[in-house]
C-alpha cells in the first residue's frame, strides 16, 4: 500500500473542528473532501461507516490527539454526495459508498477500455473486469464491486451496456 502524503491541514488542530466562518468553512470542507477521496483512492476502500470512523486514521489523528465528530463526518459525506463522489447506503445515512471518480466518470473509463480492447458486443463478468488479468494496469482493477455495478448502471441508462444477473455471478454486455 502506498504511503499517504498527509497535507499540512492534517496536523493543524482547527482542521478537526467545523469552522463557523462561512469562507473558512468552505475551504476547510474542500480540503476534507480532497483528502478523503485521496485517502480512499490510495487505500482502495469504498465504504465509510460513520459509527466506526474513529478506527480510521483519516478521521482520527492520534499524533495531535484530534478526531472528527460523527456529525462532521456526516457533513463531509453530504458535501461529497452533492458533488457526486458518494452516496448513502442506508436510510439512517450511517453507511456511505465513496468513489474518487464520479459514477459517470467510472462508466466512461470502463467503456473506453472495453471499446479499445474490442469487447463491444460480448459479455464479461464483473469479476473479469475488476480482477481479470487483462485489467491489472487499469484504474478500475480492484474496484469495489458495488461501485462497479453502480458505474455500469450509468452505462445501462445511456444504452451502452446491459447488466445480466445470474445466480451468484454478475455479467455485463456492452453495445
Amino acid at each position, binding site marked *: 500500500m502506498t504511503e499517504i502524503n498527509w*497535507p*499540512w*491541514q492534517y496536523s*493543524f*488542530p*482547527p482542521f*478537526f*473542528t467545523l*469552522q*463557523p*466562518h462561512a*469562507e*473558512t468553512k468552505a*475551504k*476547510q470542507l474542500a*480540503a476534507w473532501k480532497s483528502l478523503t477521496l485521496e485517502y480512499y483512492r490510495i487505500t482502495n476502500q469504498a465504504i465509510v461507516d460513520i459509527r466506526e470512523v474513529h478506527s480510521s486514521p483519516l478521521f482520527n489523528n492520534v499524533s495531535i*490527539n*484530534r478526531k472528527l465528530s460523527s456529525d462532521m463526518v456526516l457533513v463531509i459525506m453530504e458535501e461529497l454526495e452533492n458533488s457526486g463522489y458518494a452516496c448513502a447506503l442506508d436510510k439512517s445515512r450511517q453507511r456511505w459508498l465513496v468513489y474518487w471518480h464520479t459514477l459517470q466518470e467510472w462508466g466512461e473509463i470502463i467503456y473506453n477500455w472495453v471499446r479499445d480492447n474490442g469487447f463491444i458486443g460480448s459479455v464479461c463478468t464483473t469479476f473479469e473486469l475488476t480482477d481479470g488479468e487483462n485489467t491489472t494496469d487499469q484504474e478500475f482493477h480492484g474496484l469495489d464491486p458495488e461501485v462497479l455495478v453502480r458505474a455500469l448502471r450509468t452505462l445501462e441508462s445511456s444504452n451502452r451496456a446491459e447488466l445480466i444477473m445470474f445466480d451468484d455471478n454478475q455479467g455485463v454486455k456492452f453495445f
Partner: protein
Amino acid sequence: MNRFEFVEPRHLPNESFLIRESGVSIVDGELLTQFSNGELTLTSHRILWASSKDSSQRQIYLALSLHYVVHVEEDGSRTYSSPGKDVVLHLTEVSNEKMPGPASRSFSNYVRLSFRNESLTQFISLLTNTIMRRTWELTPVMQSLSGLNFGQSESSGSMPMIKTRTGIIGIERSLQEKQKATDESISMAFQDLKKLMGMAKDMVAISKTISAKIRERQGDITEDETIRFKAYLMSLGIDDPVTRDAYKSSNEYFKQLAKQLAQILEEPIKEVGGMMTLTDVYCRVNRARGLELLSPEDLLNASRQLGSLGLPIILRVFDSGVMVLQLRSHDDKAIVEAVAELLEERKSITAEELAQTEGLSVTLARERLLATEKAGKACRDDSIEALRFYPNLFLTMDV
C-alpha cells in the same frame, strides 16, 4: 411661617443661649406678618422670637426649630423701604410632630428675619455654625428621654433577677442575650440609615428648588448670583441624580439617564480599552449614585437610548447576547488586527489567555476572538481541553 410653634418663654434642659437681637420682624416669604419689632434669641436648638414688652397686648413667644433651616443668606435688597437688613432662612418641609403655631400653612418655604440692626455678621456666623454643628441631633432635648430612663431603672429595681451562669440554661441564656444584642444593633443601624435617607431626600429637594429658581430667573439674575447659587448646590454635596419621580414619562427619564451615563462613563470606558460589559457598568453606576439606585431594567432601557441621542458611547449586543457599552469611536478593525497579530505571534490562544495578556474580562476576550473569527482572521479548535483559536491558515495558506 407654618414651621413656627407657640412656646413657653423658657429654655429647654439641653439648650444653650447664643445671641440676642432686638427690633426683629418676621416676614413670611414676601408677606409682612403681625410679628414685628420683637426680640430674637438664637439658641443651640431653636430661634426664639418674643413680641416687645411695651405693647399692650399679651406677649407672644414663637420658636423655630433649627432643624428646619437648611440654608441661611444675607439679603440687603429688601422690597419694602426701611433701614436695616434681612436674613433669609430657607426651610425644609414641615414635620408631623410639630406643636401648633401661628400659621397652619405657608406659600413660601423661606422666611425673612428683618433686622433693624445694620451689621449682622456675628448673628449670621453664629447661626450658620450652629446649623452646621447640628447640636439638636447630638444632644436632643432631654425632656422625654430622662423620663424613659427613670422608668427603666425603676422596673429593674422592682424585679431583681437571679442569673444562673452554669448548665444548659446558662448557655441558652447567654445565646439569647447575644441574639438580643445583635438584634438591637441591627435595628440601630437601620435607624441611622433611615435618617440618612430622610436627610438626603431633603437635600435633593432643596437643591432642586434652587436649581429651578436659577432656571426660572435666568433673565433678571446677575451672573454673580448664578455662580453663588451654583456654589451652594455644590456645597450641598448632591448634584441632582436623575431619578424617576422627576419625570412624567419614562421615555424622558431614560433619555436623561442615558445622558448622565454617557457623561460619567466616557472616561472609565476609555481607560479599560473602549468597551465595558453592562454588568460592570451597572456596578459602577450604582456605586457612584449611592442612594438613588438604578434597577437593571432602567439601566438597560437607558442604554438603548444612547445610540439615538448621538452620545459618545453606545450599547452593543454581540451575537452571543453579551451586552456592552462601547465608545462610538471604537474601532473593531483595529481590535481584529491586534488579535490577529497576537495569534501569529503565539500560534494559538484561548479566551482566558487573551484576557490575561490584555487585562480584559474573559467575556470580552472571547468576544474579541469571535470578532476576529468573524472577520476570517482566526479559526477555532474546539477540543475537550478548551476552545483555542489559531491563525486562519485555511485562508492564508494557498494550496
